[in-house]
């Protein structure tokens, strides 16, 4: 396989998600010091490293530094001077981060939404339900419901709503009226991800549904649901 065919796979290789045969081909090109692939993979590894550096800043305990040094046989006690410099540096970095955060504020909500979505996706107590699998022209996807974190909807193939309409998600309790669970729009490509944070009584919830409503939303559904995802029965329920 020549380098031209492999170039679209360098980023996937750097993320460890390239598939065969491209993964093996790239590996072979690297092993024979192919200049094109080496440069391409290096660039992809740079991007991967920068993605790693984009993780939300978290502060390790102060013990960790000592543990790291102790693991190679070094014991350190920082002097007051070093502590003062570190404290000053941290303060200035915090101020700088505040500026940076303020600068990118339009995207903070999106970032928080993604974080909420992942927290629901990976919580052990989350249950999930698929929809659309059997339909010839689906909206297709899954809902994830966590009793303490909320509901996450991931959908593809949603039709564009008219300009004055919007999608509304509903929690459908057993034997009771649907409860509004937030408004959302799909992207131009028909994909959508919607999070309704907060607690959910899974035992009393039969399904999650989506309807098309007026822009202001509705207290009760006014159209036939486009999506209905019945929640699975579990032992816990």
């Amino acid at each position, binding site marked *: 396989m020549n380098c031209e065919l492999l170039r679209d796979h360098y980023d996937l290789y750097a993320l460890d998600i390239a598939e065969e045969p491209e993964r093996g081909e790239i590996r072979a090109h690297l092993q024979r010091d192919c200049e094109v692939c080496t440069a391409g993979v290096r660039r992809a590894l740079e991007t991967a490293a920068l993605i790693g550096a984009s993780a939300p800043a978290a502060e390790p305990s102060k013990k960790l530094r000592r543990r790291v040094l102790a693991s190679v046989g070094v014991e350190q006690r920082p002097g007051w001077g070093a502590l003062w410099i570190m404290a000053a540096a941290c303060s200035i970095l915090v101020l700088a981060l505040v*500026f940076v955060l303020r600068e990118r504020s339009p995207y903070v909500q999106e970032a928080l939404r993604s974080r909420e979505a992942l927290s629901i996706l990976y919580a052990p107590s989350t249950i999930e339900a698929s929809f659309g699998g059997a339909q010839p022209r689906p909206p297709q996807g899954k809902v994830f419901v966590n009793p303490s974190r909320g509901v996450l909807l991931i959908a593809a193939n949603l039709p564009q709503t008219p300009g004055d309409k919007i999608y509304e998600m509903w929690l459908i309790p057993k034997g009771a009226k649907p409860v509004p669970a937030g408004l959302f729009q799909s992207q131009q490509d028909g994909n959508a991800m919607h999070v309704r944070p907060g607690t959910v009584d899974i035992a009393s919830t039969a399904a999650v549904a989506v309807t098309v409503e007026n822009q202001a939303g509705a207290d009760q559904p006014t159209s036939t649901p486009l999506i209905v995802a019945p929640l699975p029965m579990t032992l816990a329920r």
Partner: protein
Amino acid sequence: MGTGMILPFLMSVFGGAGERALVERLKQRDPQALAELYDRYGKMAYSLVVRAVRDSAIAEDLVQETFLRVWNRVHSIDSEKGSLGPWLLAIARNRAIDYLRSVAGRERNTVELNESEHPSPYRGMESELLLSDQARRVKQAMEKLAPNYRTVMELAYFEGLSQSEMAAKMGQPLGTIKTWVRTALQSLRDDLDVAVSS
């Protein structure tokens, strides 16, 4: 100086000596060099790992293991051409993903693991890439991604899921996931290229 320049400037001021000298000192088993390496990348590595494993105690164990691995393998990096930061983050990420996979009972390709931890692919990278303005730009670009694109990137990078695993996890056809991944990567790449050309 605009706000966009503040963070890299501060990092360079407090970052200490250049990485080439740092690599040489690590090779000479200078413990103070390890302390400087930790001061430069410890928080970044911890942020990555704790984002992946979501447990501070486990994350600290894995970060400690990461630095020990760098210390033990630094002889194989070329101090004239190598870049410590991206290599260190790759090791940290591998530690985290190995942990996640072991907990979930998922296997990982050990050949690939060894490859991504070898420093040779990092030859020729900008020595302080992770402390540069590009890091801030990628962070912004990640935040600008539509939620589904951002999610697949995070699942791939921080959770170590394959595209097939993401498809199963997100209830989407594999082709859709591949499209999302490709679009997300292209979007990041476009933002980086715009930044570089400007």
